[in-house]
């Protein structure tokens, strides 16, 4: 870094010349008098930047057309990254730098200061970014042809904090010190000429300026933020004011007398020391309160997460016990925790201390966890005892456990891979590709295991292979097609990836940019049509599925909403896209209309989605009941008027005939029992409500994304559907196995990336905040919600849809050829219709249903929590500041997923209540 004193040019514009790293171009666009930028992104390229600088450096220095010359060499840094510090390449690079310095020093003018500074050191592997001694220490070399130090430079080089460079260079250049700098000037550089007293006076001057600037900053900062301790601030201010006072006195004293007595020198020295003390303490106070980690809290938080994960695991592994057990094991600890929180709050209130909500809630959580584990442990010995009293039972369970081990090991291994991948920076960068790989592996493994266990073939003796082939083909080919479809979805979804800044050669997906940015009108129209087709396909698929399940009959409000509201929603979204993508080239007159439409269409969608969700919440039962019970009323509907003509008989006779036919049929079917209600869609009433809610959410989230990502959302629904079908074929009801949960959540992360997101700040879709708003927000909450919904779209959808994992096998239970699944009432005949029970099996065993729902939720939380735990653990390890950003995204995603998971489960429970009410109404009728 070359530099020339510019005090002679005060008032004129500084001529700043830059050469080197082109990052500066983005940071300070058009700020340089002249600039030579060279591409710096490729870490493996050691020479482009350096050679480019060297080509221009000497001629520029000799030309003299500059006041400040910045040369940012990158080769040493890149060489460290690529080869490490102890490599022949590094020696070459350092020799080259030495040569450059030697040449430069020879060419410097007398009034030029040369500052050579590194911004960081490197570890033994050549990397940096952490806070180890080797990484934070860098060299500083200052050279000038006029002597800088009054005395000989010290033998042992002084250590200078890097923040000190800012005020020093600013004052040397004659510009004000930047407002928020808390550095201390390097006084030695300002004592260049004259005797000791005048040198000290000069130093005092710069110290005075510096202290004033720091004081001003601290004052205004403490007005805004409260995180600096007041006593220390007061102390600092005392030091400052006394020092300033004495400085004024001294200056006046010197101006009067100009003596050079040793007494004055001593006073000067003391004052210098005082200024120094002020500046250093100010910096120390700031450092203490800004870079404050609370290791105890971090450890405690990690322990809490770990305990929660363990709790989830233990509770989900509990056998489907009676309801009372869950109550005692889970509800009581909750009460304990609440009690602990209350006690703690009271204690705080009594002690007159500020109530830290975080501490209280974490104590409450800890207490409830301890209570849970205590109760669980209390049950353990009993079980062991009962097992020992029946040795054969124990041995069987042991063998079963051993057999279940690989079944657990595979998905857990995949989860382990996923968590372990976070330890490696490269895997974090490549996570968008790692997650689909793991998902595909998990599903392939699952199918392989099913095949291996022979669950795809009909069980029989090994000699009858020819017979087995037919049945194998039918069932397993279906499964294999599903797997192929899943792999295809995974493959296609890779087309929607966003790029990270770490991989410069990557190009973001074509689909991420909004349509409005497309120049080619024809391509725009084609893409628009494709997006609308995706929308229509989504609506049609959902409606078709609901019709297939028989949930689209009758005139329940939710059914009507699906029939008419969904197409309307699609139309609104399509209209919004049309307006938004052509907003720029519209005519002047239409401009206002376009603005209105840009706001109106999204609001229409918001309103409709809100209404739909409310409707699903209030009346979630989409069952069409056809009552064929024998009514007490007359057989023939009363016909008003006189039965005189043939027409009247034509009216009556068919009715009598139909009635007779029906009663005969019901007698034949029911064996004389008679009363029956055909309920269409009762078998899938839970999943139908969830599917409707999911579709509504999908419309909302689609609106927040750019148009072409609707294709990704279509893929998302397709993949979720395929996953559900695979799991429905591969498991036994009433318990969701681990692989299902893990693959479901892997798919959620996969679509986080496949909807054009990355866990980095530049990749956030800020445009989402302005869908339906015309560039103004009164509060911060709404845009945060919109951007959050956009960012965590796939988390939301998959978390809300999580209960489907439990429900789907019941839905798929009935043979697919049967179009309408009817279930007959009343209850005394349930056993006759065993094969069409579907989700009503869940109502048959409400205990098992709620236990299964709870276990599903716990398993999901466990899988989500494990990733949290790993990341939180990473934060505590030094060198890992770079993970903080990732942790932020992951933690937010965790919160969103958990909340949505709870909402999904709540929706299922709400449907359960509604179905109960429906049954009781039916019985009343």
């Amino acid at each position, binding site marked *: 870094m070359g530099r020339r004193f510019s005090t002679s040019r005060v008032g004129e514009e500084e001529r700043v010349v830059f050469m080197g790293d082109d990052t500066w171009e983005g940071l300070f666009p058009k700020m340089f008098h002249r600039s030579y930028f060279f591409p710096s992104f490729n870490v*493996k390229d050691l020479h482009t930047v350096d050679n480019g600088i060297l080509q221009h450096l000497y001629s520029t220095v000799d030309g003299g057309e500059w006041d400040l010359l910045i040369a940012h060499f990158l080769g040493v840094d890149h060489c460290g990254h*690529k080869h490490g510090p102890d490599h022949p390449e590094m020696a070459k690079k350092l020799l080259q730098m030495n040569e450059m310095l030697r040449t430069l020093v020879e060419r410097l003018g007398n009034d030029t200061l040369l500052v050579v500074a590194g911004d960081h050191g490197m570890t033994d592997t050549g990397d940096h970014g952490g806070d180890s001694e080797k990484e934070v220490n860098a060299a500083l070399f200052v050279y000038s042809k006029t002597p800088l130090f009054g005395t000989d430079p010290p033998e042992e080089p002084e250590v200078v904090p890097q923040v000190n460079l800012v005020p020093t260079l600013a004052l040397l250049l004659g510009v004000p010190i930047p407002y928020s700098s808390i550095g201390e000037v390097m006084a030695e550089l300002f004592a260049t000429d004259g005797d000791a007293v005048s040198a000290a006076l000069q130093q005092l001057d710069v110290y005075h300026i510096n202290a004033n600037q720091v004081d001003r900053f601290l004052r205004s900062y403490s007005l805004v933020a409260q995180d600096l301790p007041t006593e220390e601030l007061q102390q600092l201010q005392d030091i400052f004011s006394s020092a300033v006072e004495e400085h004024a006195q001294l200056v006046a004293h010197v101006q009067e007398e100009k003596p050079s007595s040793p007494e004055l020198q001593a006073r000067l020295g003391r004052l210098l020391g005082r200024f120094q003390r002020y500046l250093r303490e100010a910096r120390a106070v700031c450092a203490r309160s800004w870079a404050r980690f609370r290791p105890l809290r971090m450890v405690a938080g990690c322990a809490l997460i770990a305990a929660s994960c363990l709790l989830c695991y233990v509770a989900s592994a509990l056998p489907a016990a009676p309801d009372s057990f869950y109550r005692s094991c889970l509800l009581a600890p909750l009460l304990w925790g609440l009690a602990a929180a209350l006690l703690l709050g009271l204690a705080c209130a009594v002690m007159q201390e500020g109530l830290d909500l975080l501490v209280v809630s974490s104590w409450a959580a800890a207490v409830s966890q301890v209570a849970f584990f205590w109760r669980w442990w209390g049950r353990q010995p009993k079980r062991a005892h009962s097992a020992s009293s029946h040795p054969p039972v124990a041995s069987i369970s042991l063998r079963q456990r051993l057999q279940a081990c690989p079944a657990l090991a595979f998905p857990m291994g995949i989860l382990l891979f996923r968590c372990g991948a976070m330890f*490696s*920076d*490269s*895997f974090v*960068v*490549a996570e968008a*590709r*790692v997650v689909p*790989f793991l998902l595909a*592996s998990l599903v392939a493994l699952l199918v392989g295991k099913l*095949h*291996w*266990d*022979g669950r795809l*073939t009909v069980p029989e003796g*090994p000699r009858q*292979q*020819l017979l*087995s*082939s037919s049945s*194998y083909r039918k069932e397993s080919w279906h499964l294999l097609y599903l797997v192929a479809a899943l792999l295809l979805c995974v493959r296609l979804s890779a087309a929607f990836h966003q790029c990270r800044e770490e991989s410069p050669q990557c190009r973001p997906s074509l689909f991420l940019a909004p349509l409005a940015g497309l120049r080619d009108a024809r391509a725009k129209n084609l893409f628009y049509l494709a997006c609308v087709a995706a929308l229509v396909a989504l609506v049609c698929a959902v409606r078709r599925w609901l019709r297939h399940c028989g949930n689209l009959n009758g005139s329940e409000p939710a059914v009507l909403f699906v029939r008419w509201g969904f197409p309307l929603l699609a139309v609104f979204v399509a209209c919004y896209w049309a307006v938004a993508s052509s907003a720029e080239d519209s005519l002047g007159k239409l401009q206002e209309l376009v603005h209105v439409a840009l706001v109106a269409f999204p609001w229409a969608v918001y309103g409709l989605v809100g209404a739909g969700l409310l409707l699903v919440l209030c009346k979630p039962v989409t069952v069409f009941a056809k009552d064929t019970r024998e009514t007490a009323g007359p057989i023939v509907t009363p016909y008003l008027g006189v039965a005189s003509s043939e027409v009247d008989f034509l009216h009556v006779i068919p009715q009598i005939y139909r009635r007779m036919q029906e009663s005969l049929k019901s007698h034949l079917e029911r064996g004389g029992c008679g009363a029956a209600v055909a309920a269409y869609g009762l078998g899938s009433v839970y999943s139908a409500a969830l599917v409707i809610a999911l579709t509504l959410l999908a419309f909302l989230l689609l609106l927040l994304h750019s148009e072409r990502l609707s294709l990704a959302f279509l893929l998302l629904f397709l993949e979720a559907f395929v996953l559900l079908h695979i799991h429905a074929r591969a498991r036994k009801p009433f318990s969701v196995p681990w692989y299902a949960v893990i693959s479901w959540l892997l798919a959620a992360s996969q679509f986080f990336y496949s909807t054009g997101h990355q866990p980095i700040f530049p990749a956030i879709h800020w445009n989402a905040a302005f869908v339906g708003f015309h560039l103004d927000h009164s509060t911060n909450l709404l845009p945060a919600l919109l951007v959050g919904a956009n960012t965590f779209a796939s988390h939301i959808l998959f978390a809300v849809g999580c209960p489907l994992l439990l429900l789907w096998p019941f839905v798929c239970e009935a043979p697919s050829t049967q179009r309408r699944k009817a279930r007959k009432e009343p209850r005394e005949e349930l056993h006759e219709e065993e094969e069409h029970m579907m989700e009503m099996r869940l109502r048959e065993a409400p205990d098992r249903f709620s236990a299964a729902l709870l276990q599903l939720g716990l398993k999901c939380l466990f899988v989500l929590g494990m990733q949290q735990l790993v990341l939180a653990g990473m934060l505590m390890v030094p060198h890992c500041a770079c993970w903080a950003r990732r942790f932020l995204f992951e933690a937010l995603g965790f919160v969103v997923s958990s909340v949505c998971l709870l909402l999904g489960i709540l929706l299922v429970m709400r449907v359960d209540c509604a179905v109960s009410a429906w049954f009781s109404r039916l019985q009343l009728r």
Partner: protein
Amino acid sequence: MSEAGVRRLCAANLLRGCSVLLAATAPRFFLDGFSVLGTPLTWLCACSVSVSALSVVLNAALGPSPPPRRGSLAHKVGFLKCCMYFLMSFGRAFLSLNTFLFAVLLSTFTTLQCLCVLGPNIQAWIRVFSKNGAMSIWDNNLQITTVCSVLGAWFGAFPIPLDWDRPWQVWPISCSLGATFGYLAGLIIAPLWIHWNRKQLTYKSR
């Protein structure tokens, strides 16, 4: 299960392993600048060609199943079917040369071996690759080598995203290396496993 059969199996596996090693070293004498990492595509070709040639020869020489009569129609149809299955096992790998060669290698290690031992008989394949489905030591050998090759290829994918800047960290070299090492490991493991479980196997074959 006879001693002679096991011995034959060991010999066959030894030969196969040698062919893999030979494919990695021998071309150096004919081609300038050949090395596994330097010219991976050549190595892939050499490896697949040598292993597949050896498999076909071995199958003809000491094949476990009596070969059908030469020249018969069934034989021809069977051969065509074999080719078809072999080609089908490449999947959509025709898009790039790298992927194609990797697919050829993996198919050589898995599908071709199956074809040699079992022939184009889907039911037999399904039987062999399921629990308790292996009826002979050859089936067991097939099971183990195939699974090991696929697993090796799978594990080979893991170093790709790492930033070690090694020449073998590129698709498909690491996966090919993984598959090869997996195959070699399978060739060693299979006889050991058979030796380990020989009592159980004799019981089963009765």
